[in-house]
């Protein structure tokens, strides 16, 4: 029994030495292997045992490369998006300005172009502020229009800006003319952003008729485009005919405007 324990202890002690010798032998075999043997060992090891490790290393390297590339592309993408947005904005602005320029040249009016820089903050926009004022020879009641049609008039003038009263303002009334039948009407805003024209009861008005400024009232010169007749209201009396008008220029969609530098042909002299 004692002999057996002694043998076991010796074997336990010798196990380390034996293992070391075995590993040293294997290492030296590898070290002094021929070039061809090393190549075969390498190929076998790489293709079988080390393939998963290799794939992890490759994946890791690939991950970093893709990450860096992704970061670079993301930055580039943001930059390009900003540039693209800016170019799109320039493009639409360019189209607007081109049509305005062409209108200005063709109309022969003394037009001054300006930009809207603020709108009244309420839910129903009835006025704007534009960047034209006394310094630009802007005066009270000058018509404000776009290439498509009338949108309002100058209601207040400051040194470097003006307040524009829009057609949508319920206090704004304008005399219009049916281009086809030559009947005159009063155009006004009857609901928040709806516009109507009131003709006399016997006036000849049809849906689709074009309405232009009549020149009466002295503020708007004759012939400026305003809108077209959309539908007729059914009224109980026959004294007037009221039609709904679709404006040629929706004031909500305007960014640049013209101020027609024409003085109103009437004025009040304070007593």
């Amino acid at each position, binding site marked *: 029994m004692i002999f057996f324990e002694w043998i076991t202890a010796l074997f336990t002690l010798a*196990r*380390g030495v034996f*293992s*070391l010798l075995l*590993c*040293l032998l*294997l*290492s*030296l*075999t*590898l*070290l*002094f*292997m021929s070039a061809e043997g*090393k*190549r075969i*060992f*390498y190929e076998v*090891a*790489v293709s079988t*045992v*080390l393939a998963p*490790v290799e794939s*992890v*290393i490759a994946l*890791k*390297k690939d991950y*970093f490369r893709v990450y860096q590339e992704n970061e670079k592309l993301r930055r580039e993408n943001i930059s390009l998006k900003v540039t693209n947005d800016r170019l799109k904005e320039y493009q639409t602005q360019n189209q607007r300005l081109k049509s305005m320029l062409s209108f200005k040249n063709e109309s022969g009016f003394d037009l001054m172009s300006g930009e809207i820089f603020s709108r009244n903050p309420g839910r129903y926009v009835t006025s704007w502020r534009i960047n034209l004022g006394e310094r630009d020879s802007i005066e009270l009641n000058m018509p404000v229009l776009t290439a498509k049609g009338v949108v309002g008039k100058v209601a207040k003038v400051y040194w470097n800006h003006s307040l524009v009263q829009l057609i949508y303002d319920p206090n704004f009334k304008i005399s219009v003319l049916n281009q086809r039948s030559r009947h005159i009407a009063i155009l006004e805003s009857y609901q928040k952003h709806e516009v109507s024209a009131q003709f006399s009861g016997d006036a000849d008005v049809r849906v689709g008729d074009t309405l232009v400024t009549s020149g009466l009232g002295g503020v708007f010169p004759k012939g400026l485009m305003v809108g077209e007749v959309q539908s007729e209201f059914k009224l109980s009396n026959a004294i007037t005919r009221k039609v709904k008008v679709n404006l040629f220029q929706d004031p909500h969609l305007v960014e640049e405007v013209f101020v027609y530098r024409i003085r109103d042909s009437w004025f009040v002299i304070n007593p």
Partner: protein
Amino acid sequence: MKKFLFSFLLLLFLLVIQATLLSLMAPAWRPDLVLLGLVVLSLRFGSVFGVYLGFLTGAVQDVYVVETLGANALAYCLVGYLAGLLDETRFTFSPLTKCLLFAAAYGIHDILYNLAIGLEQPAFWSHLLWASLPSGIVSVLLSIPVFYLAPHGIRES
């Protein structure tokens, strides 16, 4: 067997870290994480464990440099064996002593490796001085927190 397999996988993971993240560092200042892991595990689990673990890990590392196939296996198995002789279940060391043991193991490994790959006399010393020494200093510095944090082996009563 389970703990051996786990230890081997841990060393392979360290090898991957060394081949990827640490490859961004200058070679002379690159710590040897695999050797550090081997010494930690050998001190904990003994010489037989250390010698086989060292041999296998070294062989895997050698595959990447076919010309010196077997050099790392030789150096690692000897270091694993020597570190395993100071098995923590029989001896008690402070973390600082373990760092010194690791420094010695690092020196032994590099000397054995340089001898195994057959470096000639001037290259041998210059390699030890300019490559092994800075890398060894970084490795030993890195080993300080490792030995302070690594759990101790349970000493036999």
